[in-house]
């Protein structure tokens, strides 16, 4: 089967132990206002244009005959500066596995592959198939934990390490800032705790939203002694939105009300 990815990153140093290759799967059920991977939100291909470097030569606006340009109404194969790209690539499990395995020599005993996103669980079946093909490789997953319990457990069970996000303990705030309830996430957290699979609980520190003492205390409680990582806010997070023609929900104009 095929999956939709938006990047394969070599030497992902913050995605697990050893030297790793990180696959970013496209599509996510959450809409976190601070998301720094907006190209991972939808499952469809998107046009990414670095408008700020554009000289408006007009080349990409002229009609062309390339089939792959048609959905976007712009020519993808002509920008002299290479400012136009399509984000999103449909690959078969075999293709992806082969691409990853080419760099197997780097992984050693400790390193391996990390599945990130987007939300890898949204393409769980595809990830299963890639895992089948990778064989005996240290695999990790970075997930929001938002999936039905069976999908979640059957996939994380196959991982050597799970990074799971816990962003907001309060369901109301979770709905407000991520667009979904945290109930499925908390249920999966329980499963994870019970499973004994090595895992790390991650919380992005978003000023005024997730970094409040009450939220952090509640998350600590929920994490039940698991290893926790607090991720510093990525001040550059907004930059990628512009490329996709999207608005960064957390731009300074829309600074959060904390109460």
């Amino acid at each position, binding site marked *: 089967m095929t999956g939709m990815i938006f990047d*394969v*990153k*070599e*030497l*992902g*140093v*913050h995605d697990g*132990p*050893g*030297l790793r*290759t990180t696959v970013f799967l496209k599509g996510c059920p959450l809409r976190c206002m601070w998301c720094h991977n907006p190209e991972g939100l939808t499952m469809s291909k998107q046009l990414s244009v670095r408008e700020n470097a554009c000289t408006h*030569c007009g*080349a990409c606006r002229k009609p062309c005959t390339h089939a792959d340009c048609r959905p976007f109404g712009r020519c993808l*194969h*002509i*920008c*002299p500066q*290479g400012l136009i790209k399509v984000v999103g690539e449909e690959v078969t499990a075999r293709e992806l596995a082969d*691409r990853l395995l*080419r*760099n197997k*020599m*780097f992984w*050693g005993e400790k*390193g391996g592959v990390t599945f990130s996103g987007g939300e890898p669980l949204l393409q769980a079946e595809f990830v299963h198939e890639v895992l089948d093909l990778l064989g005996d490789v240290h695999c990790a997953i970075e997930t929001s934990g938002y999936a039905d319990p069976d999908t979640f457990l059957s996939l994380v069970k196959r991982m050597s390490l799970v990074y799971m996000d816990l962003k907001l303990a309060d369901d109301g705030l979770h709905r407000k800032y991520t667009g979904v309830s945290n109930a499925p996430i908390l249920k999966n957290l329980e499963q994870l705790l019970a499973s004994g699979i090595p895992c790390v609980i991650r919380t992005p520190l978003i000023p005024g939203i997730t970094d409040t003492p009450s939220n952090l205390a509640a998350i600590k409680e929920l994490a039940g002694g698991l290893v926790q990582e607090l991720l510093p806010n990525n001040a550059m997070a907004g930059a990628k939105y512009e490329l996709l023609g999207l608005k960064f929900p957390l731009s300074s104009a829309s600074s959060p009300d904390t109460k």
Partner: protein
Amino acid sequence: MNTQLYQTIVIEKSHRTLRRELPEIAQEYSVAGLTPIERMTRRFEWLCKEQEPMFLGDEKICFLRTTKNIPDVFTKEEWEEIRSKHYIHESGYPSNLTVDYGKILKNGLLALKDESDTYGCRSIDAILGLVERYRQAALAESRTVLAEGHAALADGRSALAHVLEQVPAYGARSFREALQCVRIINFALWLEGDYHNTLGRVDQYLYPFLKQDMEAGILTKEDALELVEEFFLSLNRDSDLYPGVQQGDNGQSLMLGGKTKDGSCGFNLLSELCLKASQELKLIDPKINIRVDKDTPDEIYTMCSELTKVGLGFPQYSNDDVVLPGLIEMGYAPEDAVEYTVAACWEFIIPGVGRDVANIAALSVPKVIDTCLHRDLPGCQCLEDFYKAVADEIRTGLDAICDNIKDLWFVPAPFLNLLMDTPKYQNFGIHNVGLSTAADSLTAIMEHVFDTKDVTAERLIAGVDSDFAKDPELLHMLRFETPKLGTNSDKADENLVWLLDTIADALEGKKNCLGGCYRAGTGSAMYYLWSAEEIGASPDGRRKGEPFAANYSISLFTRTDGPFSVLRSMTKPSLSRTINGGPLTLEFHDTIFKTPEAVAQVGQYVKQFVLMGGHQLQLNAVNADTLKQAQAHPEHYPQLIVRIWGWSAYFVELDRAYQDHVIARQEYSL
């Protein structure tokens, strides 16, 4: 760290105000009809006399240049005549050599008098005369400051006097004496007019002194680190006076670690202290190199990555597993090869016995492709025809370079000669510039003109000649949609392998005018800017005016799959055949080094480079945004350091073209 001394030398730079300008002497020497060696000896004697003994703060290692310029020994007319009769390398003065520091440390300068001619003896007397004046000045200052009630400083000065009584006249007895001795010898080489005076394997020739002092309880590890730091600081005092293409290009490199003669690992406590000192001082000198091999323990890679994190572009790695067999294959005796170090940048040289001219000339490989594109491609029936044309042109180009180097002549250097052994190796190194541009251009021709046939030779040539002005689609295809080095393409990689093999084949067996051989290299030196200006656009989609990548690196605009793919591409050739040196250079975004785990991972990446058969690696921690800020507000970034092609420099002191190139390099981020 001696913060007061650091403040004086690095921040205030007040010692630079002590320097006097010297008058020209060439006319006088010329009128007197002096021989070249007499001129050099006489100038050295004069320069030694012109130096004023000066001490900075409570320094433990002294010697400071107090004259600005080194007046030439020949007039302009005389140089013209010399150049008409001889091949003159660069300025004509010896450079890029490593003297036998170990020998001086053992026996001292006076012991060399027996075996040296009158010029050598006069040079020894000249420098020892200056040392004696330093000694007396130290004693005098000691008395003065004692009278003023500064007992500690008085002790310091009298200790200095005590050290100068011993070195460099006689062999060193302690680690401190050894460091002072090396400082004076290095100082004297620069004063003689030799340049790119490298330091060699400091952790090998200095370690016995450190070990002995520590075992005797004279030094603690902390004392030793402080001395190493003072020694490093001493190398930054006069370095702004040293000539180079840009400020910072002064060749003060040193080598750590590596195999020893008995095959064991040479990394020792002093190697560790040198890494530490560089990490703490954050200075552009000395330039730190380290030799590694398949047995190098992980801790050493981690230690080195800690230094990389600081952002100086240190250390540069050389892989013994590739370099040693390469040198031996080229005719270096195993016992000499094992002592290798680097010249100013990355060219492998042997201390003492090596008189190689490691950077004698450069071949622009993209220019070869450009010639063949225009002259041969339209007539080529198949890809093999084109390869043959390129191979012939490479051979023709290298033959022309080699044939041009006849009657090589250097200005005599009697002091340097004292410290070198009888020359065993006089090989010439040839840089091969723009390798990635050339390999990617070959791939583009292979792919489009011969394999898919979607571009005719005429269209490609027209595109290149017009800088793709009327064919943006071709530009896009060549630049962004054609396989390149670093994009997981066997086709592209094989072209690099073929190019390096062809270059090595073309130089194999050739003898130079001194009886040595030619060594092919993967370095570019400054030619990555210069040679790029000689041609217009290239078939890889590089536009007119865009520079090549520095040294052995992938092209600046390649959409690489990442650092793994880059290593896979660049380690495919048999690099032991192109062993003049020239590193793969990678720039990592400085945020990669955030956690200790990430630092160790970078170390693992380097280890993998070594295991995969890379020859030389240069890793930089950079942040293009910071560099752009520094361009806009240089006054806020006086200490910001970047690595250029084989040396590190203060960013704000560089010409814009060199600054822009660093900013344009591939930057690997999180």
